[in-house]
């Protein structure tokens, strides 16, 4: 037997989980070869060492501890659905968004009253601006307001231009009656197309406020979902250019 064959046979026997030092062929070769004798001794020692492997015993209650932990884990997983508090959070966010929209609508509609802003109101203001000097802007606004007062009362969507309308009182929304609440929201919805036009103006003046439109659309959708189902009357669509915003009539707010 060659030394190479000896080594291969040692590995073969170990792979078969047999003790190499008990193999006659290996024994005979090991007697005549010191290197192979050393190899056989090493492998035999290792083989004995593996056979004497020990490890400490587990605690007696190990299995029951594992099963208890598993059951506790499963219970925790089952209880987890009751932790769906994000829904409450979402409800809060939606309510806040609706309130913010109401406040925003009112603020936008009252804007011309609060600030004389040439170029930020309707066509009549534009005309007034064209004939008046900057110093006369206050006078032009007064004229505009007087013209608005002469107009008959009509739903906001019927107005040909961006006439500011009186925003419905927030007190209406505070009333407990669901119907009155719905009416208040309906009135608010009627203001939205004008607010949209104002939004265009705002965006033209400040392109950085672009996300306002998205927030607005989202808030309108939210309001739509809060309106009581009995209100089915659809408002007339304004014959204006498409503002790009999903206004209440388009999403069936009323």
């Amino acid at each position, binding site marked *: 037997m060659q030394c190479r064959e000896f080594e291969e046979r040692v*590995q073969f026997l*170990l*792979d078969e*989980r047999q003790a190499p030092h008990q193999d006659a062929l290996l024994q005979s070769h*090991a*007697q005549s070869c*010191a*290197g192979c*004798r*050393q190899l056989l*001794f*090493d*492998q035999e*020692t*290792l083989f*004995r*060492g*593996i*056979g*004497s*492997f*020990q*490890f*400490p*015993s*587990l*605690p007696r209650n*190990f*299995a*029951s*501890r*594992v*099963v208890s*932990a*598993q*059951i506790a*884990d*499963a219970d925790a997983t089952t209880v987890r659905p009751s932790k769906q508090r994000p829904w409450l959070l979402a409800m809060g966010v939606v309510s806040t968004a609706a309130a913010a929209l109401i406040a925003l609508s009112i603020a936008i509609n009252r804007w011309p009253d609060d600030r004389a802003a040439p170029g930020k109101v309707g066509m009549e203001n534009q005309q007034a601006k064209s004939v008046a000097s900057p110093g006369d802007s206050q006078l032009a606004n007064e004229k505009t307001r007087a013209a608005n007062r002469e107009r008959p009362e009509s739903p906001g969507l019927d107005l040909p231009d961006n006439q500011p309308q009186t925003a419905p009182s927030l007190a209406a929304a505070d009333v407990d009656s669901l119907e009155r609440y719905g009416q208040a929201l309906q009135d608010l919805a009627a203001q939205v197309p004008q607010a949209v036009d104002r939004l265009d103006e705002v965006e033209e003046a400040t392109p950085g406020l672009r996300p306002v439109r998205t927030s607005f659309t989202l808030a309108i959708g939210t309001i739509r979902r809060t309106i009581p189902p009995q209100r089915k009357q659809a408002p007339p669509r304004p014959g204006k250019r498409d503002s790009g915003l999903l206004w209440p009539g388009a999403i069936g707010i009323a």
Partner: protein
Amino acid sequence: MTACPAVDELRAVVKRCLAGDQSAMLWLVERFQGQVFGLCYRMLGQRQDAEDASQETFLRVLRNLHRWDAARDFEPWLLAIAGNRCRTALATRKRRPAAEALADQIADGEPDHRGARQLAEEVDLALADVRDDYRQAFVLFHEHELSYGEIAESMGVPLGTVKTWVHRARRELIERLRARGVLEDQRHAVS
């Protein structure tokens, strides 16, 4: 090593475990806790770490029993999970000094043959220095008596790779035992 329980029996137990039968879970853990703890102890070299890894292994196994392919052997699947837990533990935990690990073992076992026990401890210490994957393959082969095919399946490597790892583990163990003076020079011994 005890033989794996009959496949049909094991399938029935697993089915009961999946239905939430606690006695079946208890049976399953008791049946395999020796194998799992043995591997974890050999891989981690420390009793508490091995116990923790064993518990984590069984929790994972019980949680993922539905993923076990009943057409395959249970033990390689189980030991694959145990091996993964051990490798994770090795990667995240700092090992205790070898002396401490040895103290664990000495305090625990009471073998009759002191020489055999000391030899086993030496082999165990040498094994702790062998590369993780070599060690896992070596322990699964020699201590758990899994076949090369089962180890390959368990470790997710080709069969030839497992053979190479086990052979290298043996060679490295012998080198370490020689370096520690455990193996005597037999080249000039008269037989």
